[in-house]
Protein backbone atom coordinates (compact mmCIF):
# COMPACT_ATOMS: atom_id res chain seq x y z
CA UNK A 1 0.00 0.00 0.00
CA UNK A 2 1.00 3.59 -0.49
CA UNK A 3 -0.31 4.97 2.77
CA UNK A 4 1.90 7.07 5.05
CA UNK A 5 3.56 4.91 7.65
CA UNK A 6 2.86 7.30 10.52
CA UNK A 7 -0.94 7.08 10.50
CA UNK A 8 -2.46 5.36 13.54
CA UNK A 9 -4.07 1.97 13.26
CA UNK A 10 -2.57 1.27 9.88
CA UNK A 11 -1.34 -2.04 8.51
CA UNK A 12 1.94 -2.87 10.13
CA UNK A 13 1.07 -1.26 13.47
CA UNK A 14 2.42 -3.14 16.49
CA UNK A 15 0.58 -6.40 16.68
CA UNK A 16 1.31 -9.65 18.46
CA UNK A 17 2.33 -12.06 15.72
CA UNK A 18 0.18 -14.97 16.82
CA UNK A 19 -2.84 -13.03 17.96
CA UNK A 20 -5.71 -13.79 15.57
CA UNK A 21 -7.44 -10.83 13.92
CA UNK A 22 -10.85 -12.38 14.58
CA UNK A 23 -11.57 -14.85 17.36
CA UNK A 24 -15.16 -16.00 17.71
CA UNK A 25 -15.76 -18.43 20.58
CA UNK A 26 -18.92 -20.46 21.07
CA UNK A 27 -21.05 -17.61 19.74
CA UNK A 28 -24.85 -17.82 19.96
CA UNK A 29 -27.24 -15.19 18.70
CA UNK A 30 -31.01 -14.94 18.21
CA UNK A 31 -33.25 -12.04 17.16
CA UNK A 32 -36.28 -13.68 18.76
CA UNK A 33 -36.62 -17.27 19.92
CA UNK A 34 -35.03 -19.12 16.99
CA UNK A 35 -31.23 -19.10 17.09
CA UNK A 36 -29.67 -17.43 14.05
CA UNK A 37 -26.17 -18.49 15.00
CA UNK A 38 -25.63 -21.53 17.20
CA UNK A 39 -22.29 -22.24 18.95
CA UNK A 40 -20.16 -20.72 16.21
CA UNK A 41 -16.36 -20.76 16.39
CA UNK A 42 -14.15 -18.94 13.94
CA UNK A 43 -10.54 -17.84 13.92
CA UNK A 44 -9.12 -15.57 11.24
CA UNK A 45 -5.40 -14.98 11.20
CA UNK A 46 -3.61 -11.92 9.88
CA UNK A 47 -3.38 -11.82 6.09
CA UNK A 48 -6.11 -14.38 5.51
CA UNK A 49 -8.72 -13.96 2.80
CA UNK A 50 -11.81 -15.71 4.09
CA UNK A 51 -15.02 -16.29 2.16
CA UNK A 52 -18.07 -16.82 4.35
CA UNK A 53 -20.66 -18.52 2.20
CA UNK A 54 -24.16 -19.52 3.11
CA UNK A 55 -27.79 -19.30 2.05
CA UNK A 56 -29.82 -16.12 2.47
CA UNK A 57 -31.08 -16.01 6.04
CA UNK A 58 -28.27 -18.31 7.14
CA UNK A 59 -26.78 -15.71 9.48
CA UNK A 60 -23.93 -14.30 7.36
CA UNK A 61 -24.83 -10.64 7.75
CA UNK A 62 -25.68 -11.24 11.42
CA UNK A 63 -22.20 -12.65 11.90
CA UNK A 64 -20.69 -9.53 10.28
CA UNK A 65 -22.75 -7.26 12.53
CA UNK A 66 -21.60 -9.22 15.57
CA UNK A 67 -18.00 -8.78 14.40
CA UNK A 68 -18.58 -5.04 14.14
CA UNK A 69 -20.15 -4.94 17.59
CA UNK A 70 -23.41 -3.63 16.14
CA UNK A 71 -25.20 -6.61 17.71
CA UNK A 72 -24.54 -8.15 21.11
CA UNK A 73 -24.10 -11.93 21.32
CA UNK A 74 -26.56 -13.90 23.41
CA UNK A 75 -23.66 -16.01 24.65
CA UNK A 76 -20.07 -16.62 23.68
CA UNK A 77 -17.64 -13.97 22.67
CA UNK A 78 -16.17 -12.02 19.78
CA UNK A 79 -12.64 -10.65 20.00
CA UNK A 80 -11.08 -8.46 17.34
CA UNK A 81 -7.35 -7.77 17.55
CA UNK A 82 -7.52 -9.20 21.04
CA UNK A 83 -10.12 -6.69 22.27
CA UNK A 84 -13.77 -5.72 22.12
CA UNK A 85 -15.23 -5.22 18.62
CA UNK A 86 -16.35 -1.62 19.26
CA UNK A 87 -12.79 -0.69 20.25
CA UNK A 88 -11.51 -2.16 16.99
CA UNK A 89 -13.86 -0.17 14.71
CA UNK A 90 -11.19 2.35 13.60
CA UNK A 91 -9.09 -0.59 12.33
CA UNK A 92 -11.93 -2.09 10.30
CA UNK A 93 -13.02 -1.20 6.79
CA UNK A 94 -16.65 -2.15 6.29
CA UNK A 95 -18.30 -2.48 2.90
CA UNK A 96 -22.01 -2.81 3.62
CA UNK A 97 -24.53 -4.33 1.29
CA UNK A 98 -24.95 -2.07 -1.69
CA UNK A 99 -28.59 -1.36 -0.86
CA UNK A 100 -27.80 0.56 2.34
CA UNK A 101 -26.61 3.72 0.57
CA UNK A 102 -29.05 6.25 -0.92
CA UNK A 103 -28.60 6.61 -4.64
CA UNK A 104 -30.44 9.90 -5.13
CA UNK A 105 -28.21 11.57 -2.58
CA UNK A 106 -26.54 14.87 -3.58
CA UNK A 107 -22.96 13.71 -3.18
CA UNK A 108 -20.02 13.30 -5.55
CA UNK A 109 -17.95 10.13 -5.81
CA UNK A 110 -15.00 11.96 -4.24
CA UNK A 111 -17.09 12.98 -1.23
CA UNK A 112 -18.32 9.40 -0.81
CA UNK A 113 -14.73 8.16 -0.68
CA UNK A 114 -13.78 10.92 1.78
CA UNK A 115 -16.55 9.68 4.08
CA UNK A 116 -14.26 6.75 4.71
CA UNK A 117 -12.31 9.01 7.05
CA UNK A 118 -15.37 9.42 9.28
CA UNK A 119 -14.56 8.51 12.84
CA UNK A 120 -10.81 8.89 12.44
CA UNK A 121 -10.70 12.13 14.40
CA UNK A 122 -12.51 12.98 17.60
CA UNK A 123 -13.83 16.54 17.61
CA UNK A 124 -15.66 18.73 20.05
CA UNK A 125 -19.06 17.43 18.96
CA UNK A 126 -18.75 13.87 17.77
CA UNK A 127 -16.22 12.53 15.34
CA UNK A 128 -14.93 14.46 12.37
CA UNK A 129 -12.45 14.14 9.62
CA UNK A 130 -10.29 16.61 7.81
CA UNK A 131 -11.03 17.54 4.25
CA UNK A 132 -7.52 18.77 3.40
CA UNK A 133 -5.53 18.33 0.21
CA UNK A 134 -3.73 15.26 1.53
CA UNK A 135 -7.07 13.53 2.18
CA UNK A 136 -8.29 14.42 -1.29
CA UNK A 137 -5.06 13.05 -2.80
CA UNK A 138 -5.53 9.84 -0.88
CA UNK A 139 -9.14 9.57 -2.00
CA UNK A 140 -7.98 9.96 -5.61
CA UNK A 141 -5.43 7.20 -5.07
CA UNK A 142 -8.06 4.93 -3.57
CA UNK A 143 -10.31 5.57 -6.59
CA UNK A 144 -7.37 4.82 -8.85
CA UNK A 145 -6.83 1.54 -7.02
CA UNK A 146 -10.39 0.40 -7.71
CA UNK A 147 -10.20 1.51 -11.34
CA UNK A 148 -12.35 4.61 -11.01
CA UNK A 149 -9.80 7.33 -11.73
CA UNK A 150 -11.34 10.35 -13.39
CA UNK A 151 -14.76 9.60 -11.90
CA UNK A 152 -14.35 11.70 -8.73
CA UNK A 153 -16.50 14.59 -9.95
CA UNK A 154 -19.41 12.34 -10.96
CA UNK A 155 -22.53 12.16 -8.81
CA UNK A 156 -22.90 8.86 -7.01
CA UNK A 157 -26.24 8.26 -8.75
CA UNK A 158 -24.56 8.42 -12.17
CA UNK A 159 -22.38 5.38 -11.53
CA UNK A 160 -23.33 1.87 -12.57
CA UNK A 161 -23.99 -0.65 -9.83
CA UNK A 162 -20.55 -2.17 -10.14
CA UNK A 163 -18.79 1.19 -10.17
CA UNK A 164 -20.72 2.25 -7.08
CA UNK A 165 -19.65 -0.94 -5.35
CA UNK A 166 -16.02 -0.17 -6.13
CA UNK A 167 -16.42 3.42 -4.90
CA UNK A 168 -17.68 1.99 -1.61
CA UNK A 169 -14.61 -0.27 -1.42
CA UNK A 170 -12.42 2.81 -2.01
CA UNK A 171 -14.28 4.48 0.84
CA UNK A 172 -13.47 1.54 3.11
CA UNK A 173 -9.78 1.75 2.13
CA UNK A 174 -9.55 5.42 3.15
CA UNK A 175 -9.26 4.66 6.86
CA UNK A 176 -6.32 2.31 6.13
CA UNK A 177 -8.03 -0.64 7.74
CA UNK A 178 -6.21 -3.75 8.87
CA UNK A 179 -9.36 -5.79 8.44
CA UNK A 180 -11.80 -5.45 5.54
CA UNK A 181 -15.32 -6.84 5.94
CA UNK A 182 -17.38 -7.02 2.75
CA UNK A 183 -21.07 -7.91 2.72
CA UNK A 184 -22.26 -9.41 -0.59
CA UNK A 185 -19.86 -7.37 -2.72
CA UNK A 186 -20.84 -9.16 -5.92
CA UNK A 187 -24.55 -8.37 -5.62
CA UNK A 188 -24.17 -5.55 -8.14
CA UNK A 189 -21.04 -6.33 -10.10
CA UNK A 190 -21.25 -5.48 -13.78
CA UNK A 191 -21.26 -8.83 -15.56
CA UNK A 192 -19.14 -7.60 -18.47
CA UNK A 193 -16.92 -5.39 -16.38
CA UNK A 194 -13.26 -5.59 -17.29
CA UNK A 195 -12.45 -5.00 -13.64
CA UNK A 196 -12.13 -8.32 -11.86
CA UNK A 197 -13.41 -7.66 -8.40
CA UNK A 198 -12.02 -10.71 -6.62
CA UNK A 199 -8.68 -10.48 -8.34
CA UNK A 200 -8.52 -6.92 -6.99
CA UNK A 201 -9.46 -8.07 -3.49
CA UNK A 202 -6.71 -10.68 -3.78
CA UNK A 203 -4.17 -7.90 -4.35
CA UNK A 204 -5.19 -6.33 -1.04
CA UNK A 205 -4.09 -9.41 0.86
CA UNK A 206 -0.97 -9.02 2.90
CA UNK A 207 -1.49 -5.59 4.43
CA UNK A 208 -5.17 -6.34 4.88
CA UNK A 209 -7.05 -9.27 6.28
CA UNK A 210 -10.22 -9.80 4.26
CA UNK A 211 -13.55 -11.40 5.07
CA UNK A 212 -16.10 -11.57 2.27
CA UNK A 213 -19.66 -12.69 2.91
CA UNK A 214 -21.75 -14.00 0.03
CA UNK A 215 -24.56 -16.34 -0.90
CA UNK A 216 -23.00 -16.73 -4.32
CA UNK A 217 -21.29 -20.11 -4.43
CA UNK A 218 -19.54 -19.28 -7.69
CA UNK A 219 -17.14 -16.95 -5.89
CA UNK A 220 -15.69 -19.97 -4.08
CA UNK A 221 -13.47 -20.45 -7.14
CA UNK A 222 -11.71 -17.15 -6.40
CA UNK A 223 -8.45 -16.49 -4.66
CA UNK A 224 -9.54 -17.12 -1.10
CA UNK A 225 -7.23 -18.69 1.44
CA UNK A 226 -10.13 -20.14 3.43
CA UNK A 227 -13.82 -20.79 3.11
CA UNK A 228 -16.40 -20.97 5.87
CA UNK A 229 -20.02 -22.01 5.46
CA UNK A 230 -22.66 -20.47 7.68
CA UNK A 231 -26.18 -21.72 8.07
CA UNK A 232 -26.97 -21.32 11.76
CA UNK A 233 -23.79 -23.29 12.48
CA UNK A 234 -20.44 -22.69 10.88
CA UNK A 235 -18.02 -25.02 9.14
CA UNK A 236 -14.62 -23.54 8.57
CA UNK A 237 -12.07 -25.00 6.21
CA UNK A 238 -8.44 -24.06 5.80
CA UNK A 239 -7.92 -23.90 2.09
CA UNK A 240 -10.41 -22.85 -0.55
CA UNK A 241 -12.25 -26.14 -0.87
CA UNK A 242 -15.77 -27.33 -0.43
CA UNK A 243 -16.66 -30.44 1.48
CA UNK A 244 -19.85 -32.35 0.72
CA UNK A 245 -20.86 -31.33 4.27
CA UNK A 246 -20.65 -27.68 3.31
CA UNK A 247 -22.78 -28.17 0.22
CA UNK A 248 -25.36 -30.00 2.32
CA UNK A 249 -25.32 -27.07 4.76
CA UNK A 250 -25.84 -24.67 1.94
CA UNK A 251 -28.53 -26.46 0.02
CA UNK A 252 -29.85 -29.20 2.30
CA UNK A 253 -29.68 -32.91 1.56
CA UNK A 254 -31.06 -33.93 -1.83
CA UNK A 255 -31.17 -37.21 -3.76
CA UNK A 256 -29.26 -37.34 -7.02
CA UNK A 257 -32.53 -37.63 -8.93
CA UNK A 258 -33.70 -34.30 -7.53
CA UNK A 259 -32.61 -31.33 -9.70
CA UNK A 260 -31.01 -29.75 -6.62
CA UNK A 261 -29.12 -32.97 -5.91
CA UNK A 262 -27.91 -33.12 -9.50
CA UNK A 263 -26.79 -29.51 -9.22
CA UNK A 264 -24.88 -30.22 -6.01
CA UNK A 265 -23.09 -33.16 -7.66
CA UNK A 266 -22.15 -31.01 -10.61
CA UNK A 267 -20.97 -28.16 -8.39
CA UNK A 268 -18.97 -30.55 -6.25
CA UNK A 269 -17.02 -31.43 -9.35
CA UNK A 270 -16.13 -27.82 -10.04
CA UNK A 271 -14.20 -27.17 -6.88
CA UNK A 272 -11.34 -28.90 -5.14
CA UNK A 273 -13.62 -30.88 -2.86
CA UNK A 274 -12.13 -31.77 0.50
CA UNK A 275 -12.66 -35.05 2.30
CA UNK A 276 -15.62 -35.14 4.64
CA UNK A 277 -14.80 -33.68 8.04
CA UNK A 278 -15.52 -36.97 9.83
CA UNK A 279 -13.03 -38.80 7.57
CA UNK A 280 -10.22 -36.75 9.05
CA UNK A 281 -8.70 -37.29 12.48
CA UNK A 282 -10.09 -34.81 15.03
CA UNK A 283 -8.42 -31.39 14.94
CA UNK A 284 -7.00 -31.76 11.45
CA UNK A 285 -9.77 -29.97 9.64
CA UNK A 286 -7.34 -27.13 9.32
CA UNK A 287 -4.54 -28.98 7.67
CA UNK A 288 -3.30 -31.79 5.48
CA UNK A 289 -5.54 -31.15 2.53
CA UNK A 290 -4.18 -30.55 -0.96
CA UNK A 291 -5.77 -27.13 -1.22
CA UNK A 292 -3.90 -26.02 1.88
CA UNK A 293 -1.22 -24.61 -0.38
CA UNK A 294 -3.49 -21.71 -1.27
CA UNK A 295 -2.95 -20.45 2.26
CA UNK A 296 0.35 -18.82 1.47
CA UNK A 297 -0.11 -15.10 0.88
CA UNK A 298 -0.95 -14.69 -2.76
CA UNK A 299 -0.21 -10.98 -3.36
CA UNK A 300 -2.29 -11.12 -6.47
CA UNK A 301 -0.41 -13.95 -8.12
CA UNK A 302 -2.50 -16.77 -6.79
CA UNK A 303 -3.81 -19.46 -9.09
CA UNK A 304 -6.14 -17.94 -11.65
CA UNK A 305 -9.82 -18.68 -11.21
CA UNK A 306 -9.82 -20.87 -14.31
CA UNK A 307 -7.42 -23.40 -12.88
CA UNK A 308 -9.12 -23.37 -9.50
CA UNK A 309 -12.34 -24.25 -11.24
CA UNK A 310 -10.98 -27.38 -12.88
CA UNK A 311 -11.95 -30.63 -11.17
CA UNK A 312 -9.47 -31.60 -8.54
CA UNK A 313 -7.74 -34.86 -9.50
CA UNK A 314 -9.11 -37.82 -7.63
CA UNK A 315 -11.68 -35.77 -5.77
CA UNK A 316 -14.39 -35.74 -8.39
CA UNK A 317 -17.75 -36.69 -6.99
Amino acid sequence: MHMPASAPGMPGAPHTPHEPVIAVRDLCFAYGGEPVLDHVDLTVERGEFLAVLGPNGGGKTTLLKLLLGLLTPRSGGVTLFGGAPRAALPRIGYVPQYSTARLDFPVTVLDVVLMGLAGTRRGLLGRHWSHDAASVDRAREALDQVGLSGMEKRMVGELSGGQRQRAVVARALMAQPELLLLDEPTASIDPQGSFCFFEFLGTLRGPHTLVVVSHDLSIATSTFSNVAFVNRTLVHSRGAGLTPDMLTMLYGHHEKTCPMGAFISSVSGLFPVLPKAEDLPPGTLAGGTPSDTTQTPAHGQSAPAASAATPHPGKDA
Partner: protein
Amino acid sequence: MLDALSYDFMQQALAASLLASIACGVIGTLVVVNRLVFLAGGVSHAAYGGVGLAFHYGWPVLPSAIGFSVASSMLMAGVALKRPEKSDAAIGVLWAAGMAFGIILIDLTPGYKADLMSFLFGSILAVPTTDLYLMAALDAVLLAVVALCHQTLLVTSFDREFAEARGLPVRTAHYLVVGMTAVGVVMLIRVVGLVLVMALLTIPPFIAARTARSLPSMMAAATAWSTVFCVGGLALAYRWDVTSGAAIIAVASAGFMAVSGAGALRRIMARKTA
Protein backbone atom coordinates in the same frame (compact mmCIF):
# COMPACT_ATOMS: atom_id res chain seq x y z
CA MET B 1 -47.24 46.67 -6.97
CA LEU B 2 -43.99 48.04 -5.49
CA ASP B 3 -45.96 50.35 -3.23
CA ALA B 4 -46.80 47.20 -1.26
CA LEU B 5 -43.26 47.29 0.06
CA SER B 6 -43.91 50.55 1.85
CA TYR B 7 -46.38 48.85 4.17
CA ASP B 8 -44.98 47.71 7.49
CA PHE B 9 -46.93 44.47 7.42
CA MET B 10 -45.45 43.63 4.00
CA GLN B 11 -41.90 44.22 5.23
CA GLN B 12 -42.61 42.05 8.24
CA ALA B 13 -44.03 39.38 5.93
CA LEU B 14 -40.94 39.44 3.71
CA ALA B 15 -38.66 39.16 6.72
CA ALA B 16 -40.74 36.23 8.00
CA SER B 17 -40.53 34.62 4.53
CA LEU B 18 -36.75 34.86 4.46
CA LEU B 19 -36.35 33.51 8.00
CA ALA B 20 -38.74 30.65 7.33
CA SER B 21 -37.02 29.89 4.00
CA ILE B 22 -33.67 29.42 5.72
CA ALA B 23 -35.22 26.91 8.12
CA CYS B 24 -37.09 25.28 5.24
CA GLY B 25 -33.97 24.92 3.11
CA VAL B 26 -31.90 23.38 5.89
CA ILE B 27 -34.52 21.12 7.46
CA GLY B 28 -36.36 20.29 4.26
CA THR B 29 -33.11 19.01 2.77
CA LEU B 30 -32.49 16.72 5.74
CA VAL B 31 -36.15 15.59 5.69
CA VAL B 32 -36.05 14.76 1.99
CA VAL B 33 -32.70 12.93 1.96
CA ASN B 34 -33.65 10.98 5.11
CA ARG B 35 -37.14 10.19 3.74
CA LEU B 36 -38.86 11.73 6.75
CA VAL B 37 -41.62 13.52 4.84
CA PHE B 38 -44.41 11.51 6.48
CA LEU B 39 -42.88 12.10 9.89
CA ALA B 40 -42.76 15.84 9.15
CA GLY B 41 -46.46 15.66 8.30
CA GLY B 42 -47.20 13.90 11.58
CA VAL B 43 -45.17 16.43 13.57
CA SER B 44 -46.84 19.41 11.89
CA HIS B 45 -50.33 18.15 12.67
CA ALA B 46 -49.50 16.98 16.18
CA ALA B 47 -48.25 20.54 16.81
CA TYR B 48 -51.91 21.53 16.88
CA GLY B 49 -52.07 19.90 20.31
CA GLY B 50 -49.53 22.46 21.49
CA VAL B 51 -51.60 25.25 20.01
CA GLY B 52 -54.64 23.95 21.90
CA LEU B 53 -52.68 23.83 25.14
CA ALA B 54 -51.47 27.40 24.60
CA PHE B 55 -54.99 28.70 24.00
CA HIS B 56 -56.57 26.77 26.84
CA TYR B 57 -54.05 27.80 29.47
CA GLY B 58 -53.10 31.16 28.01
CA TRP B 59 -49.47 30.18 27.34
CA PRO B 60 -47.38 31.80 24.60
CA VAL B 61 -48.27 29.98 21.39
CA LEU B 62 -44.92 29.49 19.63
CA PRO B 63 -43.00 27.95 22.57
CA SER B 64 -45.98 25.74 23.45
CA ALA B 65 -46.31 24.45 19.91
CA ILE B 66 -42.54 23.86 19.65
CA GLY B 67 -42.45 22.01 22.97
CA PHE B 68 -45.42 19.85 22.03
CA SER B 69 -44.11 18.93 18.59
CA VAL B 70 -40.60 18.23 19.85
CA ALA B 71 -42.05 15.84 22.47
CA SER B 72 -44.27 14.05 19.94
CA SER B 73 -41.47 13.93 17.36
CA MET B 74 -39.14 12.24 19.87
CA LEU B 75 -41.80 9.55 20.38
CA MET B 76 -42.07 9.05 16.61
CA ALA B 77 -38.28 9.03 16.23
CA GLY B 78 -37.94 6.41 18.97
CA VAL B 79 -40.44 4.13 17.26
CA ALA B 80 -38.79 4.71 13.87
CA LEU B 81 -35.46 3.66 15.38
CA LYS B 82 -36.52 0.68 17.47
CA ARG B 83 -39.48 -0.68 15.50
CA PRO B 84 -39.09 0.65 11.96
CA GLU B 85 -41.86 -1.61 10.70
CA LYS B 86 -44.31 0.08 13.11
CA SER B 87 -43.20 3.66 12.54
CA ASP B 88 -45.74 4.39 9.78
CA ALA B 89 -48.65 3.47 12.01
CA ALA B 90 -47.20 5.25 15.06
CA ILE B 91 -46.82 8.48 13.07
CA GLY B 92 -50.43 8.16 11.90
CA VAL B 93 -51.67 7.73 15.48
CA LEU B 94 -49.72 10.72 16.83
CA TRP B 95 -50.77 12.78 13.80
CA ALA B 96 -54.47 12.26 14.54
CA ALA B 97 -54.20 12.26 18.36
CA GLY B 98 -52.30 15.56 18.48
CA MET B 99 -54.84 17.27 16.26
CA ALA B 100 -57.85 15.91 18.14
CA PHE B 101 -56.29 16.91 21.46
CA GLY B 102 -55.79 20.47 20.20
CA ILE B 103 -59.32 20.74 18.82
CA ILE B 104 -60.90 19.49 22.07
CA LEU B 105 -58.87 21.94 24.18
CA ILE B 106 -59.87 24.81 21.90
CA ASP B 107 -63.54 23.73 22.06
CA LEU B 108 -63.28 23.87 25.84
CA THR B 109 -61.82 27.39 25.69
CA PRO B 110 -64.45 30.14 25.61
CA GLY B 111 -63.92 33.18 23.44
CA TYR B 112 -62.99 34.41 19.98
CA LYS B 113 -61.42 31.70 17.82
CA ALA B 114 -60.73 33.32 14.47
CA ASP B 115 -56.99 33.47 15.16
CA LEU B 116 -56.85 29.67 15.02
CA MET B 117 -57.62 29.74 11.32
CA SER B 118 -54.29 31.47 10.86
CA PHE B 119 -52.55 28.42 12.32
CA LEU B 120 -54.27 26.22 9.77
CA PHE B 121 -53.79 28.50 6.78
CA GLY B 122 -50.95 30.76 7.77
CA SER B 123 -50.71 34.31 9.05
CA ILE B 124 -47.61 35.66 7.40
CA LEU B 125 -49.20 39.11 7.14
CA ALA B 126 -49.58 39.26 10.90
CA VAL B 127 -46.33 37.89 12.33
CA PRO B 128 -45.51 39.84 15.52
CA THR B 129 -42.01 41.35 15.72
CA THR B 130 -41.18 39.22 18.77
CA ASP B 131 -41.85 36.11 16.67
CA LEU B 132 -39.50 37.43 14.00
CA TYR B 133 -36.70 37.65 16.58
CA LEU B 134 -37.55 34.20 17.86
CA MET B 135 -37.42 32.79 14.32
CA ALA B 136 -34.09 34.51 13.69
CA ALA B 137 -32.69 32.97 16.87
CA LEU B 138 -33.95 29.52 15.91
CA ASP B 139 -32.44 29.89 12.43
CA ALA B 140 -29.11 30.76 14.01
CA VAL B 141 -29.28 27.69 16.26
CA LEU B 142 -30.24 25.42 13.34
CA LEU B 143 -27.41 26.72 11.17
CA ALA B 144 -24.90 26.39 14.01
CA VAL B 145 -25.96 22.80 14.78
CA VAL B 146 -25.83 21.78 11.12
CA ALA B 147 -22.44 23.46 10.62
CA LEU B 148 -20.97 21.76 13.67
CA CYS B 149 -22.38 18.30 12.94
CA HIS B 150 -22.47 18.36 9.15
CA GLN B 151 -20.06 15.47 8.67
CA THR B 152 -21.95 13.19 11.02
CA LEU B 153 -25.26 14.27 9.47
CA LEU B 154 -23.86 13.63 5.98
CA VAL B 155 -22.53 10.14 6.67
CA THR B 156 -25.52 8.98 8.74
CA SER B 157 -27.98 10.32 6.16
CA PHE B 158 -26.13 8.77 3.22
CA ASP B 159 -25.30 5.34 4.61
CA ARG B 160 -26.43 4.65 8.14
CA GLU B 161 -24.97 1.16 8.38
CA PHE B 162 -21.56 2.39 7.34
CA ALA B 163 -21.80 5.30 9.80
CA GLU B 164 -22.56 2.83 12.57
CA ALA B 165 -19.56 0.72 11.61
CA ARG B 166 -17.36 3.82 11.80
CA GLY B 167 -18.54 4.39 15.37
CA LEU B 168 -20.51 7.56 14.57
CA PRO B 169 -23.37 8.56 16.93
CA VAL B 170 -26.07 7.34 14.55
CA ARG B 171 -28.90 7.38 17.09
CA THR B 172 -28.12 10.88 18.33
CA ALA B 173 -27.98 12.10 14.73
CA HIS B 174 -31.41 10.53 14.06
CA TYR B 175 -33.00 12.26 17.07
CA LEU B 176 -31.24 15.49 16.14
CA VAL B 177 -32.66 15.51 12.61
CA VAL B 178 -36.17 14.70 13.86
CA GLY B 179 -35.94 17.33 16.63
CA MET B 180 -34.78 20.00 14.18
CA THR B 181 -37.66 19.00 11.91
CA ALA B 182 -40.14 19.54 14.75
CA VAL B 183 -38.74 23.00 15.49
CA GLY B 184 -38.62 23.99 11.84
CA VAL B 185 -42.12 22.75 11.15
CA VAL B 186 -43.59 24.95 13.88
CA MET B 187 -41.76 27.93 12.46
CA LEU B 188 -43.11 27.25 8.99
CA ILE B 189 -46.64 26.90 10.36
CA ARG B 190 -46.58 30.61 11.14
CA VAL B 191 -45.83 31.40 7.52
CA VAL B 192 -47.90 29.05 5.41
CA GLY B 193 -50.12 27.25 7.92
CA LEU B 194 -50.38 23.76 9.29
CA VAL B 195 -51.99 22.28 6.19
CA LEU B 196 -49.48 23.67 3.73
CA VAL B 197 -46.27 23.23 5.69
CA MET B 198 -45.51 19.93 4.00
CA ALA B 199 -45.32 21.44 0.55
CA LEU B 200 -42.84 24.16 1.53
CA LEU B 201 -40.72 21.58 3.31
CA THR B 202 -40.59 19.22 0.34
CA ILE B 203 -40.97 21.22 -2.91
CA PRO B 204 -37.92 23.53 -2.61
CA PRO B 205 -35.55 20.69 -1.56
CA PHE B 206 -36.98 18.49 -4.30
CA ILE B 207 -36.21 21.12 -6.94
CA ALA B 208 -32.82 21.83 -5.34
CA ALA B 209 -31.89 18.13 -5.38
CA ARG B 210 -32.02 18.06 -9.19
CA THR B 211 -28.83 20.06 -9.53
CA ALA B 212 -27.23 20.04 -6.07
CA ARG B 213 -23.81 18.39 -5.78
CA SER B 214 -23.57 18.40 -2.00
CA LEU B 215 -25.78 18.65 1.06
CA PRO B 216 -24.85 22.31 1.83
CA SER B 217 -25.46 23.38 -1.78
CA MET B 218 -28.84 21.61 -1.71
CA MET B 219 -29.72 23.52 1.47
CA ALA B 220 -28.68 26.85 -0.08
CA ALA B 221 -30.60 26.19 -3.30
CA ALA B 222 -33.70 25.08 -1.37
CA THR B 223 -33.55 28.29 0.69
CA ALA B 224 -33.32 30.34 -2.49
CA TRP B 225 -36.25 28.54 -4.12
CA SER B 226 -38.32 28.85 -0.97
CA THR B 227 -37.67 32.61 -0.80
CA VAL B 228 -38.68 33.01 -4.43
CA PHE B 229 -41.92 31.09 -3.81
CA CYS B 230 -42.73 33.11 -0.68
CA VAL B 231 -42.15 36.47 -2.37
CA GLY B 232 -44.09 35.36 -5.45
CA GLY B 233 -46.94 34.06 -3.32
CA LEU B 234 -47.09 37.27 -1.29
CA ALA B 235 -47.27 39.30 -4.50
CA LEU B 236 -50.16 37.15 -5.73
CA ALA B 237 -51.90 37.41 -2.38
CA TYR B 238 -51.55 41.21 -2.42
CA ARG B 239 -52.66 41.59 -6.02
CA TRP B 240 -55.75 39.37 -5.87
CA ASP B 241 -56.46 39.47 -2.14
CA VAL B 242 -56.23 35.71 -1.61
CA THR B 243 -54.94 33.74 1.41
CA SER B 244 -51.17 34.26 1.52
CA GLY B 245 -50.29 30.68 2.57
CA ALA B 246 -52.33 29.18 -0.25
CA ALA B 247 -50.84 31.66 -2.74
CA ILE B 248 -47.28 30.71 -1.70
CA ILE B 249 -48.03 27.02 -2.19
CA ALA B 250 -49.71 27.73 -5.53
CA VAL B 251 -46.53 29.42 -6.72
CA ALA B 252 -44.35 26.59 -5.31
CA SER B 253 -46.51 23.94 -6.98
CA ALA B 254 -46.37 25.79 -10.29
CA GLY B 255 -42.60 25.96 -9.93
CA PHE B 256 -42.45 22.25 -9.13
CA MET B 257 -44.49 21.37 -12.21
CA ALA B 258 -42.49 23.70 -14.44
CA VAL B 259 -39.17 22.20 -13.32
CA SER B 260 -40.44 18.61 -13.54
CA GLY B 261 -42.00 19.31 -16.93
CA ALA B 262 -38.79 20.89 -18.23
CA GLY B 263 -36.84 17.88 -17.00
CA ALA B 264 -39.20 15.44 -18.72
CA LEU B 265 -39.06 17.48 -21.92
CA ARG B 266 -35.26 17.48 -21.84
CA ARG B 267 -35.22 13.69 -21.43
CA ILE B 268 -37.58 13.24 -24.37
CA MET B 269 -35.45 15.55 -26.55
CA ALA B 270 -32.30 13.71 -25.50
CA ARG B 271 -33.89 10.38 -26.46
CA LYS B 272 -34.87 11.74 -29.89
CA THR B 273 -31.41 13.06 -30.70
CA ALA B 274 -29.70 9.93 -29.35
